[in-house]
C-alpha cells in the first residue's frame, strides 16, 4: 500500500552555545494506512524530535529543519504556511504525549477540550461537537461518558486521562496518529488496556500509527515495522519479528539483550544481562563517522573512517553498520 506519511532526508539542527548540533541526520521513514510503525532508541537519540518535526513543533529558534521533506499524501508539510499547518495538526495528524497530566489543560473540563478540536476543524455547531465528543469518549471506552465530559483532568486517573488524550487525538479521524511514549507513566495493566485500544482503532479507522518507545517488548507486541534510532541517525529498519529474531546492528542487538525478559520458566541460573557500555554520545562530539563506535562490541578500523551507509539485509530490512555485512 502507498504510504500515507513519508519523511525524506530530514535533517534538524539546533543552534547552541557549543555550535550547531545536528539532532536528526537524514532520516527516512514511511508509514502506510492501518500500519503501526515503532520508533525505538534510548533517550536523546531523536525519537521525539522526529515526531515534533512531522508536526512542525520544533522550537524555533534554536531549532531548525534544514533539509528534507515531510510528505502527507503527496503534500509537503514543510512547504505550507503556518496557517495551513494548523489545519493539519489535530485534524490529519494528531499526537499523544507521554504525560497526560501536563498535556491536558487543568482549568477546562475534558469534554470541552475534546469538542474544541472538533469545532475548530470540522466547523460544526457547539452542541454537535459536544455530541461527537461523547461518542469519541465512548469509542475509547471511557465508562459513563455523559458524566465524564463535565469533569476536570485532576478528577480522572492516569489511564483515564490518557484515554481522554486519545479521544482528543482521534476526534477528527486523523490519517496519522503519533504516540510518543503513551504509557510510560502508566501501570502495566493499564498500559495493556491502552495498547488494546490503539490496536482496535488502527483496525477500525485504518489509521497509521507511529509509536515511539524505548521498550522492545512494547515494539514486539504492538507494531508491525520498526525503526531503530541512535544519536539522530536511523541505524536499522525492518519488519518487527525480523528485527527481534535477527537484529543486524550491534545497537539493536544490545537493546534487545540488555533488558531482562520475563520467562514462564525462569530457571535456576541467572545470566548477567548484556550491557551496552557507556552512554549516548554528546551530539557536539559527533564527527560524521559511525556514532555508535565508542560503545560497539564489533568495532573495526573502518568505523572511524566513514559513516556506514544503509544497506539491505533482507526483505524490507535495512541496516547502517559496517560490521553487519561481515559478522554473519
Amino acid at each position, binding site marked *: 500500500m502507498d504510504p500515507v506519511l513519508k519523511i525524506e532526508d530530514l535533517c534538524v539542527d539546533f543552534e547552541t552555545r557549543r555550535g550547531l548540533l545536528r539532532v536528526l541526520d537524514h532520516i527516512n521513514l514511511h508509514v502506510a494506512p492501518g500500519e503501526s510503525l515503532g520508533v525505538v532508541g*534510548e*533517550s536523546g537519540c531523536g525519537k521525539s524530535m522526529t515526531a515534533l518535526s512531522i508536526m512542525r513543533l520544533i522550537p524555533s529558534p534554536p531549532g531548525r529543519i534544514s533539509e528534507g521533506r515531510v510528505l502527507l499524501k503527496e503534500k509537503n508539510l514543510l512547504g505550507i504556511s503556518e496557517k495551513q499547518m494548523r489545519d493539519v495538526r489535530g485534524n490529519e495528524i494528531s499526537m499523544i504525549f507521554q504525560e497526560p497530566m501536563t498535556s491536558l489543560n487543568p482549568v477546562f473540563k475534558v469534554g470541552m477540550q475534546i469538542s474544541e478540536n472538533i469545532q475548530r476543524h470540522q466547523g460544526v455547531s457547539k452542541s454537535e461537537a459536544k455530541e461527537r465528543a461523547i461518542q469519541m469518549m465512548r469509542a475509547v471506552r471511557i465508562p459513563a461518558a455523559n458524566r465524564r465530559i463535565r469533569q476536570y483532568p485532576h478528577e480522572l*486517573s*492516569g*489511564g*483515564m486521562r490518557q484515554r481522554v488524550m486519545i479521544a482528543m487525538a482521534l476526534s477528527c479521524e486523523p490519517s496519522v496518529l503519533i504516540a510518543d511514549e503513551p504509557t510510560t507513566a502508566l*501501570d*502495566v*495493566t*493499564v*498500559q*495493556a*488496556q491502552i*495498547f*488494546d485500544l490503539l490496536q482496535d482503532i488502527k483496525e477500525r479507522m485504518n489509521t497509521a500509527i507511529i509509536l515511539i518507545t*524505548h*521498550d*522492545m*517488548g*512494547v*515494539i*514486539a*507486541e*504492538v507494531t508491525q515495522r520498526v525503526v531503530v534510532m541512535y544519536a539522530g541517525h536511523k541505524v536499522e529498519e525492518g519488519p518487527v519479528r525480523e528485527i*527481534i529474531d535477527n537484529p543486524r546492528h550491534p545497537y539493536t542487538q*544490545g*537493546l*534487545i539483550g*540488555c*533488558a*531482562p*525478559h*520475563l*520467562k*514462564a*520458566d*525462569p*530457571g*535456576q541460573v*541467572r545470566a*548477567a*544481562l*548484556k*550491557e*551496552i*557500555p557507556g*552512554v*549516548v554520545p554528546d551530539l557536539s562530539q559527533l564527527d560524521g563517522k559511525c556514532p555508535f563506535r565508542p560503545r560497539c562490541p564489533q568495532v573495526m578500523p573502518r568505523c572511524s573512517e566513514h559513516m556506514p551507509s544503509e544497506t539491505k539485509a533482507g526483505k524490507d530490512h535495512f541496516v547502517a553498520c559496517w560490521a553487519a555485512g561481515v559478522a554473519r
Partner: protein
Amino acid sequence: MNSPLLLEVKNLCTYFKLPKTHPFAPAQKVFAVDDISFELPRGKTFGLVGESGCGKSTTALSILRLVEPTSGSVFYNDIDVISLSQRDLRRLRRNMQIIFQDPYSSLNPQITAGDIVATPLKIHNIGSAGERNKRVSELFARVGLRPEQKAAFPHQFSGGQRQRISIARALATQPDLIVCDEPVSALDVAIQAQILNLLIKLQREFNLTYLFISHDMAVIQHMCDEVAVLYLGKIVEQADRISLFKHPLHPYTWALLSAVPSVLKGGERSKKRVHLEGDPPSPIDPPPGCRFAQRCPFAEAAENCWSETPPLRKIQNGHKVACHRVTEEGVAPQDKLAT
C-alpha cells in the same frame, strides 16, 4: 550471634489519617500497608512487586522507620526496630541503607559527589578525614566511577552515574541490608542493565541482603530469590522466584504477568492473554472482602469474594496465596481456562 534471618516483618500496618473535608465528616484512613509479614534471609533478595499505590514503598519506609508504622513488629538481626529509641535507631541505620528511585532528587545538588558518599561516614563518625577520603575513592572504584570524579557535582553526571553515586553512598557504612526502591525505573534501558549487573556483583562481593522494590515483573524475576505481590496494601501471593513465575496462583499475579509486553512472546500467545478492566481502586477505606474482587474475572459471591477477606495461606512448600478461589491442592481459577 548472627541468625540466618536478617529481617523479620510481622503484621506490619501503616495507616495514614486523611484530613477531614469538613468538621463532621467521618475520619478516613489510607490503608497503605495492611498486615504484611515476611522473612528475609541473609544474603538473599526479597522482591516486592505491584502497581503504583499498592504500598511497596511505604512498606520499605516503615521497615526503616522513615515512616512510623501504626502497628506490627520488625526484627532486624533479632533487634526489635519498632521499639528502639531514636539514638539506637540511628546507630542501627548504619547497617540498613536505601537506594531511591530518582537519582535526580535523591542527591544534594549543592555538595560534590565525594562529599555525598562521605556523608554517612561523617554521620556515624567512621574514620578520620584521610581515611574517609580513601574509603570514598575505593567506593567510587567499586561502583564503576573514577576517583577523580569525586570533585564533580551531581548535575555533571548522567542518570546512570548518579545512581552509581547513590549505590556508593548506601555501601559506605558497610551495611548488611540495602533497600532498593525502584532503583532502575528512572533509567534508560541500556543503563538499567549496567545498574542491575552492578547490584548483583556487589551482592556477591559483600554478601548483601536486598529488599528490592519494583513494578517491573521482568526486573523482579531477574533480581529476586523470593517475591511478594502486593495489591492495595496486602500481600496477595508470595513464593520463591521459580514457582511464582512458573505457576502464578493468584488471578492478579497471573493478570499482571500476562500484561507485561515481551519480545519473547509469539503473536498467538498475546491474543490469549487477559486484560484487567479499570484501575486499581483507592486504598482509602477499601471495601470488605477481597480487595481484588472488583477487578477479578473469577470473583463469585458464593465463594465469599465480596464479603470475607481471604487470608494468606500456604499451598505448598513456601508458596502462599490470599485467594478464596485457589484450592488446597494448588489449582488456581485461571488454570481451567488453559485447557
